[in-house]
């Protein structure tokens, strides 16, 4: 049957505050995770990645945390700016029958209040 789209989870933060976007992944064997940012009218763009042998990785204003025990990933954005408004996707690398593919979460829309 025809699938019905769900409402996209949203997060609203004040400009200058820190943002935390969460993601639950499905496969305990996934060995690599990526966060993507998608601005309106554009394709997703790479932000930061983390391997399963790490629990934290920092970039410029962004930090990714990985909790393998509960299969949870988070993206922290420091001092959120208007340009951070976008939809954010987590992705996990899965190995399927010897091939590798990225499986994406449903996305979270981040809006910045002035």
């Amino acid at each position, binding site marked *: 049957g025809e*699938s019905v789209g*769900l409402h996209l989870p949203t997060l609203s933060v004040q400009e200058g505050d820190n943002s935390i976007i969460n993601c639950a992944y499905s496969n305990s064997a996934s060995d690599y995770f990526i966060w993507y940012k998608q601005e309106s009218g554009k394709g*997703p763009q790479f932000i930061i990645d983390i391997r399963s042998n790490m629990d934290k990785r920092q970039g410029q204003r962004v930090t990714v945390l990985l909790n393998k025990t509960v299969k949870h990933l988070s993206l922290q954005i420091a001092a959120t700016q208007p340009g951070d408004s976008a939809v954010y*996707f987590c992705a996990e690398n899965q190995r399927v029958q010897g091939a590798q*593919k990225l499986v994406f979460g449903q*996305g979270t829309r981040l809006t910045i209040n002035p």
Partner: protein
Amino acid sequence: DVKVTQSSRYLVKRTGEKVFLECVQDMDHENMFWYRQDPGLGLRLIYFSYDVKMKEKGDIPEGYSVSREKKERFSLILESASTNQTSMYLCASSSQRIPGGVYSYTFGSGTRLTVV
């Protein structure tokens, strides 16, 4: 600069039409992917290809087919378009030859298809 180009930003087609979505990458990447994106459902993999003339079904291949006759071009085909195929379609590519490159997807800007 790495580039994935999708030929159309917006398309409107009628139910039952055969639709071709074209994707070209200029990075000599081996891997190419087609996703559809719907609100609240994220990106869902339709088909992918790891080499010329090679194709693999993704998670939602029904109603679609693909063609990869040349390394740089990966086409998505809707044999008989239906209204439930109205969506944003995203093409991506990645490389197997550079360390970690298989994970690093480069996406096109997307084609928003409306089937009426």
